Each structure stands twice: as structure tokens, then as C-alpha cells.
């Protein structure tokens, strides 16, 4: 009887013990692993100053078409391309290349078959590097509903013109008007005087060659 009671008592105790101890052990094991985890050096990320990715659009590229008056040689259609870098909201640098074709001089037209230049020499090609300044920023309103930003700018620079088989140092001066259709598309109207020395008709003189063009550009 005593044995039986002891057996019962012990077995119950053992059972209770296992039941109560098991989770205890488990808890202990969990605590250990937790502690171990906590002992791992926390990784403190070094805060680096990172500039967010914002699409910067300081370049402008486009093509133009217009008219160019070549002194003594009439007016021809002009085609060109431009690439500009906007450094501040007012100042920009521009590289441009253009080509046009000279007509006949009045003398050639009147005298019949006299030709001063060959066909290939009549082609005029120029390139220039200019700096521009936006002086009059503004806004244009259309139909009472739409508003477009605009800029009036002055521009001037240096370049080279190939005409009648010669390359001439050329100074260009002018002004333009930029109409921003949206955030990245722009319409230009540009007037420019290209000045270079020419000795084609005998004596050396400074020729003024006026250009008027319209262009479509995009900012990127």
C-alpha cells in the first residue's frame, strides 16, 4: 500500500514535473537564443547623405528651319540643329550647326550665263558656339484657358562659316523667343546676324547675313 501510494505520488510528481518543466526548458531555450540574438552586435547603418534621384533636365536639343539672307547672294532656306546647356535659370551655352544655299547675285541674273560660283561653292555651312542670357521671362495666354511660360533671350558667339570654298571666322549676334509648350517641349523663334569678312566681290568687306528661323526643341 505504501509502495503503491509512493508510486502514485512519484508518478504524478514526475508527470507534473515533466509537464511543468517542459515548457520551462523550452522557455529557457528560447530565452537563450533570444539573449544570443541580442548579444549580436546591432548593425547601425551609417547614415549616408544620398541625393534622391530627381530627373535633371539642363540640356536642350532641337532642329530648326528658316531663311538665311546671304549678302549679295539672295535668300535661301536654312536647316540647322542646336544643343544648349542651361547653367542657371538665366545663362545658357549653345552650339549650333546650319546650312543654306546661295542664290544668284543680281549681276549673274542680269548678265545671263555668268556664274561667279560653282554649285558646290554656293552651299553655305556654319557652326557656332554662343552664350545666351534670358532677359525677359514671361507668360503667354491662349484662349483664356491656357498659359505658357516664355523667355526672350539675347545670344551671341563665335563660329566659322564655309562659303564659296573658304572658311571665315564669324561673329553671330541676335535674339530669340522661347515658348515652353509643356515641361520639356519648346518652340523657338530666332533672329541672328552672322558677320564675317569676305573678299568674294573684289575688296574685303564685312558681310551681314541675317537668319530667321523657327525651331522645336526638347529638354532632357
Amino acid at each position, binding site marked *: 500500500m505504501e509502495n503503491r501510494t509512493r508510486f502514485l505520488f512519484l508518478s504524478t510528481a514526475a508527470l507534473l514535473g515533466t509537464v511543468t518543466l517542459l515548457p520551462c526548458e523550452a522557455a529557457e531555450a528560447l530565452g537563450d537564443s533570444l539573449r544570443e540574438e541580442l548579444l549580436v552586435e546591432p548593425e547601425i547603418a551609417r*547614415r549616408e*547623405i*544620398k*541625393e*534622391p*534621384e*530627381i*530627373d*535633371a*533636365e*539642363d540640356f536642350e536639343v532641337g532642329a530648326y528651319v528658316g531663311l538665311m539672307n546671304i549678302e549679295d547672294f539672295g535668300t535661301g532656306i536654312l536647316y540647322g540643329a542646336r544643343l544648349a*546647356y*542651361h*547653367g*542657371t*535659370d*538665366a*545663362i545658357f*551655352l549653345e*552650339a549650333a550647326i546650319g546650312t543654306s544655299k546661295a542664290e544668284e547675285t543680281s549681276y549673274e541674273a542680269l548678265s545671263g550665263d555668268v556664274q561667279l560660283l560653282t554649285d558646290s561653292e554656293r552651299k553655305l555651312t556654319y557652326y557656332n*558656339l554662343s*552664350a545666351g542670357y*534670358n532677359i525677359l*521671362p514671361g*507668360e503667354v495666354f491662349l484662349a483664356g484657358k491656357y*498659359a505658357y*511660360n516664355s523667355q526672350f533671350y539675347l545670344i551671341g558667339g*563665335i*563660329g*566659322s562659316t564655309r562659303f*564659296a*570654298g*573658304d*572658311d*571665315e*571666322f564669324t561673329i553671330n549676334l541676335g535674339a530669340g523667343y522661347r515658348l*515652353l*509648350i*509643356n*515641361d*520639356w*517641349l519648346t518652340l523657338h523663334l530666332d533672329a541672328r546676324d552672322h558677320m564675317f569678312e569676305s*573678299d*568674294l566681290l573684289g575688296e574685303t568687306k564685312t558681310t551681314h547675313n541675317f537668319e530667321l528661323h523657327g525651331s522645336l526643341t526638347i*529638354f532632357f
Partner: protein
Amino acid sequence: MQYLRTGWLLIWLAPAIGHTEEVYQRVEVAAPYIEMHTGPGESYPIDQVAERGEWVEIRKRRTDWFQVYTRRGRSGWVYIRQMRRTLTEDGSPLQLRSYTQDDFRERKWEFSFYGGDMDGAALLGLYGGYSFNENLSTEISFSQALGDYSSEYLFDINLLSQPFPEWTYSPFFTLGGGMIRTKPSSTLVQTEDRTDSTAHVGVGLRVYLTRRFFMRGEFRHYAVFTSRDDNEDFDQWKIGLGFFF
């Protein structure tokens, strides 16, 4: 007329075509308010403000101006100084770079165009440069000299040493070589085009202006190795305006 109409239609449609689903940076205004101009420049009027606590989306940057959209879909251009008074999603101030003289010292790339004089002929050209470090860089340049009797094309590669990059007016020394192509004027009795190799030494000054702009003046002495009996040499002066990255 048909083409004109199509052209106009294209211009109106362009914003729709250009629009793609993009995730833009969102920031919360921390200043009492930020001013939104109608265009990217000081002279454009302020037509609205975004108040403290308001979230705005940054769409693009043009020079130091940022185009932001408010939650109500209104847009405007905010200057960099005010843009810095906004917080990103994790609560830290928005970090934005504007370009200073320190950036100029640490530049990697630079581009410039210049004009000048080469033995009485007008000179113009452009170059691109790459910096290995603050003191040493390399450059490639194309120039054209336009004289009364000929025009010359120059192609040069040079190394450039800048011993005092921290000075605002910083001197440099250069050494390089290249080619020169001479094309006689067509109104003269025809002589043939010729191409010779050249070497040059030079000295100059670089001046930081503002933002990404700098100015540069330079003197170079060239030696031309001709196939004729004697070699030629000439001097070149130039001044240019450039920008850097």
C-alpha cells in the same frame, strides 16, 4: 493645311505621350510654407504655396529649380533653398546638391569652348577634359584657326597639371601633341592641303565662376614637325567658357 493641323494636334498630344507611370520622390514641407513659382526662375511670379505638413511630389529639376506637384495636382517650381526645408518619408531633411567651388575641385568631366588668336588668325574651338585627381587631367580638343590665306584645323591631346586646385584663380601647366591640317584659301593660287604633327607646351589660368561654370585663359606654344627642311612654330592665345560635372 492638313499637315499644319496634324502638327498642332501632335503638339497638344505630346504631354500625353510623354507621360509614363513613374515613382517620384515625395517630401513633406517642414518650413511654414514653400513658394511655388509659375516657371523655373526667380522672375516668374509665385502663384501658390505649399504649407507645413503638406506632401508634394518632385517631378524634375532644371538648374536650381524643382518642379513639384501638390496632392491636388497643382504644379509649380520651387527654388533649391526652400526645397531643402522639406522632409523625406523617413523624416530626414531632403539633401540636395547645388554646385560650389568644392564640386569644381572634385569635378570628373569638363567641357568648354574658346576663342582666341593663333599667329594673327582667329581661333575657335572646343575641348572635353577628364580629371584623374585634383591635380592631373587629360584633354582632347578640336580647334580651327581662320587666317587670311589659309584655315587650319588642329586636333590635340594633352596632359594638364594644376598645382593649386584650391585657389579661385588657379594656374595650370600643359603639355601635349596632335595634328595640324592646313587648307589654303581658295582665292589664292592653289597649293595643296597638308597635315603635320605638332607638340605644344602651355600655361594658363582657370577661374571658377558660379554653379557649374568656369572660365579659362591659356597661352600655348606649338612646334610643327614638317616634312620640309625647317620646322615651324607659332603661339596661340585663347579664352574660354565652360561647364563641369
